[in-house]
């Protein structure tokens, strides 16, 4: 007992708890939500520990206590076998444990700061991801301005997404250094940075199947299934009335310690949803492939097949034509299809129309060839085109 009194466990616990709380504040809450993994992970300690970061104070205290106990036990055992200089050894063991079994605590964070600029970029990316996840579009725009990342590939994509969500994309489009409509998202690529923005992009467009796809890919490209992905996948399944998938994923999430409220809430939504829509009413197959065509044509397909949010798809279509500076095509889409329903036209649209007029072409001349004509006969060539796809795992 003397031994334990000499090295007051409460003080050590509090010190370690402070470290863990700081970890939460600095890293986990801000930057690495993706580390909140669930079952099937490699390391059960991480699975167990990570869940406490939903309650940082409680989690920090538990973690601090656990590591103090480990350290003191180690020290006690070393003393028993007669090692005199046990304190440095146990400290090393404790630090090693803390380093390996804490979710990127500030020891690692410091390491990142010192040795890796890329990882700093990942931190920003995770911050934007969180803000997009919370649909805090104004906050997202402000964060990007504050970080001065408005013209970086990731910053611009998130910022343009926020503009679309806020309905200001067409007004502000040319305040960005966007040179291609492919820069609205990361089409055809997977990765820690790419999948969250792709997911948020299709979620904003209300294309739920592709949002689900991107959420799952996000889980796969990082360490494993994670809470954030599973929650997303549940919500997208509910949106598409894919009840059995949502129910399965809810069962999985219910196994975690701190998601019972989420599960309960979604189960109630499913019960209500089933009354209104007993099953998914989507067609069995579709010719509307995501990433199968150029961005512009994909938006056109989404618009014409009435998949997702039509207005947003049309705004992306018009913006992507304007990025290419195809004034005639723009006017054709604008007038021939009679698509744009806003009363007050955004400035870039007005300017495009003025330029068209200034070329001496009357607006009615735009009538004969519709965008649909262009789409089917010019944009889609009658030969095989390189559809964006990757090798299957089968």
């Amino acid at each position, binding site marked *: 007992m003397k031994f334990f009194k000499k090295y007051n466990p409460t003080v050590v616990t509090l010190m370690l708890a402070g470290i863990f709380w700081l970890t939460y504040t600095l890293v986990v809450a801000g930057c690495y939500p993706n580390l909140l993994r669930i079952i099937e992970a490699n390391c059960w300690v991480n699975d167990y520990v990570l869940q406490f970061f939903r309650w940082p104070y409680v989690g920090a205290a538990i973690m601090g206590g656990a590591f103090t106990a480990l350290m003191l036990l180690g020290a006690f055992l070393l003393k028993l076998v007669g090692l005199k200089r046990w304190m440095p050894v146990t400290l090393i063991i404790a630090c090693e444990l803390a380093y390996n079994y804490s979710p990127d605590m500030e020891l690692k964070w410091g390491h990142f700061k010192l040795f890796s600029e890329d990882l700093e970029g990942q931190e920003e990316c995770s911050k934007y991801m969180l803000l997009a996840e919370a649909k805090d579009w104004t906050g997202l725009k402000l964060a990007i301005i504050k970080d001065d990342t408005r013209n970086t590939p990731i910053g611009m994509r998130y910022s343009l997404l926020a503009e679309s969500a806020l309905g200001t994309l067409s007004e502000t489009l040319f305040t960005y250094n966007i040179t291609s409509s492919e820069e609205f998202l990361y089409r055809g690529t997977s990765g820690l940075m790419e999948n969250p923005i792709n997911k948020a992009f299709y979620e904003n467009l209300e294309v739920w199947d592709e949002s689900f796809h991107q959420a799952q890919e996000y889980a796969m490209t990082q360490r494993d299934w994670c809470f954030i992905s599973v929650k997303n996948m549940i919500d997208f399944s509910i949106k598409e009335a894919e009840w059995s998938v949502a129910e399965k994923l809810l069962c999985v999430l219910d196994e975690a310690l701190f998601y019972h409220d989420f599960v309960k809430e979604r189960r109630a939504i499913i019960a209500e949803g089933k009354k209104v829509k007993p099953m998914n009413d989507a067609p*069995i197959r579709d010719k509307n492939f995501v990433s199968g065509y150029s961005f512009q044509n994909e938006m056109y397909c989404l618009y014409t097949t009435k998949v997702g949010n039509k207005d947003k798809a049309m705004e992306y279509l018009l913006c992507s034509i304007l990025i290419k500076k195809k004034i005639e095509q723009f006017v054709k889409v604008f007038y021939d299809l009679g698509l744009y329903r806003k009363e007050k036209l955004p400035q870039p649209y007005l300017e495009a129309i003025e330029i068209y007029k200034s070329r001496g072409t009357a607006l009615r001349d735009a009538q004969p060839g519709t965008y649909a004509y262009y789409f089917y006969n010019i944009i889609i060539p009658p030969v095989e085109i390189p559809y964006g796809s990757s090798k299957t795992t089968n």
Partner: protein
Amino acid sequence: MKYAHFCLLVGCIMFAACTERVPQEKTAAKPEIFPDYTEVTVPRTIAPLNFRVEGATHIQAIAKDCNSETYVKASGKEHVEFNLKDWHALLAQADSVCVSVAVWDEAHPEGIQYGDFKFYINNDEIDPWLMYRLIPPGYEGWNKMGIYQRNLSSFEQRTVVSNEENGRGCLNCHAVCQGNPDKFTFHSRGENGGTIIQCNGNMENVNLKAIGAQMQGSYNFWHPSGKYIAFANTNTHQTFMARSKDKIEAYDLWGSLFIYDVEKHDSYVDERFNDSTTLESFPAFSPDGKWLYFVSAKRVNMPKEYEILRYNILRLSFDESNGRLGENIDTIYNAEKRERSAIIPRISPNGRYLMYSTSPSGALTLYHNDSDLGMIDLETMTDVDCTCLNSEESESYHSWSSNGKWVLFSSKRIDGRFTRLYFTHWDGKTWTKPFMLPQEDPYDNTLLMMAYNVPDFILKPVQIDRSRVKKLLKRKEE
């Protein structure tokens, strides 16, 4: 004294916990159990059919031989687990088993005794092991994946090879020779890729692209002699649909066939199946080794015309002496006539039946909700009804047991996305109701975030040195 009181208290608690409860209600209705094992037919050696009742707080089950007094009891909170030894003792003598289930739940806090359900035991033997791949379902990416083997008499699952051995790359297209895992292949993709061929204890990493036909293998099938392996050489892509029940369309941009000679380490391509007008895939030898079955489709502009891509099942003779294919091509399944695509031909061990996966179009029907199993009687060239095997969700990847009495297949019938394994008995005339691969905790079927892929029966466990696999794949990298 205090110690004695404590012991008494613990004893009382344990006694109370072990005491059987008596349900206060009774109904003739059958319980809703998961997985559904009611009225199924199982082999005598099957692992305990543990089941679950959703929302139960307590379950008591008695599985009893319908014709004798032998029984096995189990109880649990939401599911029941039968004792393995007692279970096998019961199944060793029973022809049918009556299961009595009592459930305590929110609706029946005092318990309800349901009407007994039955399942039947069939004397036809089933191969003792299964092999399958576990991968995240659908889409492109994965983190962990592996090829596993599972003992059908217990719940033992062993890793054959996982992607820890190839740096998290893809492992696919595993195959054994007629259920004999001494002859075993699989592909490892990615930087350290290659085709691992294990033959009678000798394992090698073969670079198929560097020899003979200079083609990279994918789907493969061993000749019964173990001397040849037929490979498909496919370039598989996938595309994603914006909104539909089918989420993915997987297709080949090219597909051809070649034969690999295991002894000579050489490969041979028949130029008839190496042109740009047709796509070939899924080769399969007949059990007597005299025929090679495969699927073939007229090439179309993919994925634009994916709805008209339909695979026929064809066959041609195979000469074991020189590994060459015969001249005449027989059409076994005419996709145009039937307006459906068929893939994965698998011939029953007696050579009489051909089982396949079918859907209105496509190269990988498992991605289609309306993928079903079908079967042709090769003697009469007529269809065999497989309706009772199919569901509204996808069925595919089927395999015959070595005696041709049991069929194993994968199905997404539970949730539409995660494939699970099912078994059915075939007596030459009828199928029995399919039953799901038993798990120790039946809830694992729900919680497992992996899909079963390419399941196959094996006669004994695969013996493979995983560290050697790792070395072989590393050496190639160097």
